[in-house]
């Protein structure tokens, strides 16, 4: 790993409702690349992803210990400002959740919250982000129509545009294509590959082929522990650990 890590996790432990979900996680996620977190259902993939932008804060009975450094800043430090941290990361959830407003307002939502008021500026942001997510040509005539009327694949790209509009450094994807048809999936995957020039992308996925297609690095999580971390080809084709080997071959799922 030659690149400087953008996210650096040190001895992270997470307990939810008394269950030990993440056990002593140490990981360095490299800058400007796609990293996939793979592992069987319920192994803690999504929890790990959510610790990166402190989305676990609102869950009841959560205990987090250890540290997560993002650009050398500890996001679990007592004086860390949550909104500032979250602004640095765009989140793309399993299913698209457009906000109950127009397409335009969805993209402008983040910038508005962070103080952009001028219409010309907002117009420019909306157009740029919709173009970056290849939605512009599809929606430019109905920017002020409700976002809920878009197809599900379009909605997911809109959610991505919405996340990019706050100029994050990191994009977090939580099985972001699992609700989509193959064509929409393909479009989102293409976007990820294109976006990694400018952003660091961390994805949770349970589709090994997808991980192989688009990611540079792979983290294999099993029962709350990091089993293996390395470049995609190495982890998938030539795993060092026995557990990884079994998972990749499909013996455990």
């Amino acid at each position, binding site marked *: 790993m030659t690149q400087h890590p953008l996210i650096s996790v040190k001895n992270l432990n997470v307990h939810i409702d008394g269950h030990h979900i993440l056990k002593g996680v140490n990981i360095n996620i490299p800058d400007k690349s796609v990293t996939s977190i793979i592992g069987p259902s319920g192994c803690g993939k999504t929890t790990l992803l959510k610790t990166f932008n402190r*989305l676990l804060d*609102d869950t009841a009975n959560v205990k987090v210990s250890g540290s997560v450094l993002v650009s050398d800043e500890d996001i679990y430090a007592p004086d860390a400002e949550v909104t500032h941290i979250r602004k640095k990361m765009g989140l793309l*959830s*399993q299913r698209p959740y457009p*906000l*109950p407003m127009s397409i335009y307002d969805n993209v402008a939502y983040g910038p508005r919250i962070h103080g952009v008021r001028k219409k010309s500026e907002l117009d420019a942001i909306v157009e740029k982000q919709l173009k970056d997510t290849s939605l512009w040509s599809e929606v430019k005539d109905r920017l002020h129509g409700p976002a*809920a009327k878009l197809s599900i694949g379009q909605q997911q790209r809109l959610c991505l545009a919405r996340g990019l509009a*706050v100029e994050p450094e990191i994009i*977090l994807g939580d099985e972001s294509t699992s609700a989509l048809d193959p064509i929409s999936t393909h479009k989102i995957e293409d976007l990820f590959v294109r976006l990694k020039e400018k952003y660091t992308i961390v994805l949770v996925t349970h589709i090994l082929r997808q991980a192989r297609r688009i990611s540079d690095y792979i983290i294999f999580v099993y029962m709350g522990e990091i089993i293996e971390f390395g470049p995609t080809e190495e982890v998938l084709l030539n795993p060092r650990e026995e557990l990884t080997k079994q998972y990749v071959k499909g013996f455990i799922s």
Partner: protein
Amino acid sequence: MLILSIASVSFVFLIGIGLYWRAAPLFNENTLYSLFRSSEWAPSSGKFGFYPFIMGTLWVTLIAIVVALPLCLLTGVYLTEYAKSSVRRVMLPLVNILAGIPPVIYGVWGIFFVVPIVREYVAPRFTEYSSGYTVLTGGVVLAVMIFPILVSIVSEVLKTIPKELKDASLSLGATKWETIKKVVLKRALPGIIAATVLAVSRAFGETIAVLMVCGNVPVAPTSVFDGGYPLPALIANNFGEMMSIPLYDSALMFAALLLFVIIFLFNLVSRIILNRIEHKYSS
């Protein structure tokens, strides 16, 4: 089951037709317009003006909603978004107990508690004299009465907002309060309107508690410190008495018909608004 449903729906029409039939003699001597617009209420000389009663009903109901809705929204938001689950578990059942208290007890509470407060503390700041038996008092008592139904429906509606939708807003760097204001309440709007409609319908018809505290003077109120005389109170106070006066029972039946029509129209209009909002934002 089809027959039963038809029967229950047809009851609504039967009641409407029945009321109209009994009220009909009134129309022989008065135009509909004069019944609505006239403020003169002198049954013994055959003068029936319903304007004061319609206004009394509207004032009391409006005050109740203006008082109750913001309180209920904040309570609902607190219970679903901020309160610990232990607080929630205690609070919601307690609120529901409020719903089970008989109206007459609210009336007594209004007379001994709200009426003196309005008379001694609130009214003197704004007006020269008030007995305390005002539309404001009626509105406040009514607000407390519709509080449980509003809080529990609003809480239920807020609970259905998916966590992922809130996460989406939070992950863009919005604070929790911004998320609630701009996303949660917006998404919950149709449900909140539906809850309000239910509460208002209840408020329109509430009789005893309101009758006990709002003065029952047949004059259209011009300020919140005037007394009022809502339609249900008119019917309850006078039905069965003074039936020797010609047309009196027709007039009361007409009052009931009015109430019926007001509630019907109100439900209809809110249904239309609700449909339009749902059409706009649901997928």
